[in-house]
């Protein structure tokens, strides 16, 4: 036996990096985007090291700013989870902004107009918002089912309609006629109380944790989650194995929208003294980004959302002591989304590795046959 034949029998080492390539890819994309942001800061800032220091270490300066990262991340996690369910069902439904805004509006209505009973009010507010959010998020898909209007387009229209509609409800029924535009202050008993003193962390965080575990369990461990993912991955296959795709897709929209609506209610009753959102909310894009960074796995969404919130808070702290505006983070957002979405980004390495492995597989199989 000569040397060449010997080497054929040794199977190539399976590398950990290549086996988890989809995660490594995201990490590389992030690193690339971050370094571009750093380079921009380096060239633009008067004192680049101070700026980068503030951006990276700023949120760790005090407990207050550390908790504010988590507070900032909470609505992003809610929409991220909502987008996760919706996108896994194969529909690019961006109606979650409408659901989020309406959720906040309806929660304010419940808090201000119904008699306040501690516990019950909060429950009713969140429940009503969740139901409304679910229905709002189903609308574009229902419309598509009966009229074939592109759901992306109708979702954008619905977002505007629900924003103006929600703002109308606030300014007609809840408006306090003094100073800036806003509702009356919520009664203290109707708010989600503080969970951790000396911060703004409220009991919504606990609800978020429950919702998060629920979504992970639903998508990873239950039949319904499997069905949603099957319908999203391969609709033809799903129909052929007898799944009711239409109903499953609608159900997924409802679940996603209800999480977004709940997020709106919790954000409003947890973080605000009164309803103050005069402009439309824009959490869908954050939710989409967080979903993509988590590689479509709901379990990772809190991590990626906290990362994004960390950068936002860090950039705001940075902008206070340097000349760099916090919008520098937009470079990162744009680049990261594009790179993570591009399935051919770094595709060559993975393809080469796969070829090597399968070639070795074939060789060792055929060795066995002829032996």
């Amino acid at each position, binding site marked *: 036996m000569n040397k060449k034949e010997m080497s054929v029998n040794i199977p190539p080492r399976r590398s950990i990096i290549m086996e988890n390539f989809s995660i490594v890819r995201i990490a590389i994309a992030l690193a690339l985007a971050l370094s571009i942001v750093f380079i921009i800061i380096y060239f633009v800032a008067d004192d680049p090291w101070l700026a980068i220091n503030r951006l990276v270490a700023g949120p760790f300066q005090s407990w207050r700013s550390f908790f504010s990262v988590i507070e900032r991340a909470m609505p992003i996690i809610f929409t991220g989870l909502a987008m996760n369910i919706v996108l896994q069902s194969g529909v690019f439904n961006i109606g979650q902004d409408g659901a989020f805004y309406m959720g906040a509006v309806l929660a304010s209505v419940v808090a201000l107009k119904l008699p306040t009973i501690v516990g019950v009010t909060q429950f009713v507010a969140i429940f009503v918002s969740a139901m409304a959010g679910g229905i709002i998020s189903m609308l574009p898909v229902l419309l598509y089912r009966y009229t074939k209007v592109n759901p992306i387009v109708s979702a954008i*229209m619905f977002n505007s309609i629900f924003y*103006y*509609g929600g703002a109308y409800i606030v300014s007609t029924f809840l408006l306090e006629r003094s100073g800036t535009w806003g509702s009356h202050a919520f009664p203290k008993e109707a708010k989600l109380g503080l969970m951790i003193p000396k911060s703004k962390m409220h009991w919504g965080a606990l609800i978020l944790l429950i919702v998060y575990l629920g979504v992970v369990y639903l998508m990873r461990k239950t039949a319904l989650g499997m069905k949603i993912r099957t319908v999203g991955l391969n609709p033809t296959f799903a129909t052929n194995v007898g799944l009711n795709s239409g109903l499953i897709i609608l159900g997924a929209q409802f679940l996603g929208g209800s999480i977004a609506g709940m997020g709106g209610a919790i954000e409003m009753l947890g973080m605000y003294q009164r309803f103050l959102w005069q402009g439309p909310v824009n959490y869908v894009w954050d939710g989409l980004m967080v979903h993509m960074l988590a590689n479509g796995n709901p379990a990772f969404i809190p991590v990626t959302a906290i990362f994004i919130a960390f950068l936002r808070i860090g950039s705001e702290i940075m902008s206070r002591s340097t000349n760099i*505006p916090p919008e520098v983070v937009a470079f990162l957002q*744009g680049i990261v989304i594009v790179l993570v979405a591009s399935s051919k980004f770094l595709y060559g390495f993975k393809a080469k590795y796969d070829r090597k492995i399968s070639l070795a597989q074939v060789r060792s199989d055929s060795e066995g046959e002829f032996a």
Partner: protein
Amino acid sequence: MNFILSADFWFSVLAGTTPVMLATLAANIVSQSGMFNLGIEGTMLMSALMGVLVSAFTQSLFLGMLAGLLSGIILSFALGYFTLYLEAPMNSVGVAINLFSAGVTVFVLTLITGSKVTSSSLTSLTFPAVHIPLIRDIPFLGRVLSGHNLITYLGWIFAVGLSFLLYRTRLGLDIRATGRNAEAAASVGIQTNRVRFKALLLCGIFCGFGGMYLSMGALKSFTANMVAGRGFLSLAMDTLSSSHPLLGWGGSLLYGFSETITIYLQLYSDADLKVISAFPYIFIILVLVIAQLARNLLVRRKKNIQLKGR
């Protein structure tokens, strides 16, 4: 409601239509070539800023226009590169373009002018208004049709030109064939990617003019997020017109009308502002649903006739 009869009202309808019309043309050409550009909003925003900045620093309208068009084309080509060569989903790239532009325009604006909101501290140039010699003298029509910004007239020419290009030329045929079925088009020797990039080039130009109309025509400076959803609306107009440029023009007139009437109603009535502002969107979604239902009905009837004919 007397204002509906005034020439000023119809003049503002045509003026308000312009940016949406240009965005709709951009959406039309892109979806005719089989793509979906969610990033029109961001592309317009970037062009609006670049046009203002370069024209302010060079004091040359031509260079400003070139910069605005170039940034529009670059962002459109980025969409093409990432979706066609790196196989990214179009929706995600469009979202990335929007997020990028929304942030980066404010970033650049703040660095250069010190203001987060507006570029009014710079003296930027604007496209001139054009008075058409003979038409301006016609009593009512003259005041409606003449005196618009140069870009408005350019947009009208583009709309006609684009429908000519799409339905009367070889390139248009290639674009539509690629949009219908890219593989079939490739099999008869059409270089689909090259055709799509040509479509994206036009998309970038239309977005560029649309954005610059906002910051160098309708207003004299750039303000943050000044596109305000018009890019997204153009997608609705595109669906409404089934990607035909002239129908798209009609659709955006519908938007211009509902937007202008909203502005006038806010001036003349005491109904709540927010409800009136929702009017264009409700109106568009209703028209969209009705148009789509009618289209479905037509398709079904055609099928029935074909079946009977057999």
